[in-house]
């Protein structure tokens, strides 16, 4: 910004020259104010989503720039929520962008006193091994009265109720095939 430009924008001159003699409005506007626009207009895209908290199912518009969520607002199109959100829904941008979110696998070995790092691939492999091993060790073909059981009582699951239907479906399908029956959910709690 050159000096001339600066002087040209000097509100005192604009006060003298324009209708805003008292300098309380138009004359005092800054360059920033003149350029102000809602930051969501700069979003690359708006993605239709649903609030992850309670079961009302409020519609959300997720504003995305690059690979980052820049804002989450209520979806005015929704006949359920009409664009409105509660404090939790309104905080869901903070939920997804939380700096304390887990980003890496954490591992605690038996009797260990500290967290350790673990590669995701290794972790998945170790878990698969444990499932197979536990299943074999705890398999029940029949009960004492000879009734067929075909199951393991060594592996249990407890799921939250903010998981997707598709996720629950794969879980139930896999556990059932594995013979793991102690599969439970927040829905019961």
């Amino acid at each position, binding site marked *: 910004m050159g000096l001339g430009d600066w002087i040209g924008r000097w509100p005192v001159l604009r006060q003298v020259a324009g209708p805003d003699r008292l300098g309380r409005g138009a004359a005092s506007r800054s360059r920033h104010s003149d350029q102000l626009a809602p930051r969501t207009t700069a979003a690359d895209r708006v993605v239709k989503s649903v609030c992850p908290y309670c079961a009302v199912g409020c519609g959300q518009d997720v504003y995305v720039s690059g690979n980052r969520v820049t804002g989450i607002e209520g979806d005015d199109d929704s006949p359920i929520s009409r664009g409105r959100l509660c404090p*939790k829904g309104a905080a869901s941008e903070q939920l997804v962008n939380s700096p304390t979110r887990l980003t890496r696998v954490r591992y605690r070995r038996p009797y260990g006193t500290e967290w350790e790092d673990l590669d995701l691939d290794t972790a998945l492999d170790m878990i698969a091994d444990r499932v197979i091993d536990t299943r074999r060790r705890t398999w029940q073909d029949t009960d004492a009265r000879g009734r067929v059981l075909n199951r393991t009582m060594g592996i249990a699951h407890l799921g939250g109720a903010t998981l997707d239907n598709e996720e629950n479906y794969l879980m139930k399908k896999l556990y059932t095939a594995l013979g793991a029956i102690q599969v439970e959910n927040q829905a019961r709690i």
Partner: protein
Amino acid sequence: MSNHLSGPVEDVTGQSGYPAGHPPRMGFFTDTSVCIGCKACEVACKEWNLVPESGMDLLGSSYDNTGALGADTWRHVAFVEQVRPRESAPVDLGMPAVGRPGGQEAADADRDVTWLMASDVCKHCTHAACLDVCPTGSLFRTEFGTVVVQEDICNGCGYCVPACPYGVIDIRAGDGRAWKCTLCYDRLRGGLEPACAKACPTDSIQFGPWDELRGRAQQRVDHLRASGVPRARLYGADPDDGVGGDGAFFLLLDEPEVYGLPPDPVVTTRDLPAMWRAAGVAAATAAAVMVAAFLGGRR
């Protein structure tokens, strides 16, 4: 155009130097009779305006742990618990008591409880003291008739803080500048409604052209009064009040001070001419004293 310092103003935006054809004055009507105290407004405001967290203190003010408006709180939900004696006490059918302490207090429990909730916000006064006293022009009136701090201008002189008759604006610690509700000026420029009004689940916070909102508010208060809520009243909707009417006004269910609002706020600059007159007389007196001191007793 008159009433530069106080009194009703027909077109506050025009008075601030915006050409004819400027947008209508926009404002909030906060109808506390439908506020459920969810604080969505507080969160939505912070989310949009990137306002910092304002402290993890349990205040014990009912469910209000925010306390008051400030640099880091641009919407504040007040919670007021009130007790009134109940007219008829419940009847005890006199089953044999199990026998334990405390039975005698039950009579004190015969009470009716009301729980008032209200989302407070910057009033965007017609005569805004913060704006009037701001020496840098950081605080200014926008084309929507709202009052906004320009963060690229504010030098943190702090004059606006004690000037505000509602205790709204404040200096942000660690930042040094003054901050308050902008009525989502950036959103308004993009044709969006402010974040709090958009989020408000029960439409307690309504946003719109000021004239329209005032009509709606009057209808609502008339309706409430007719349906047995005599304590309902509008606050800040009267252009003849001490600040020329608030751009953001309220329907309250009790006296304003119960919610932490001043009962009869006046823009301080209303008295500015009197102040300068007094200062002029004082200055002249001082000048006269000095002249007299030098010219009078030549010692």
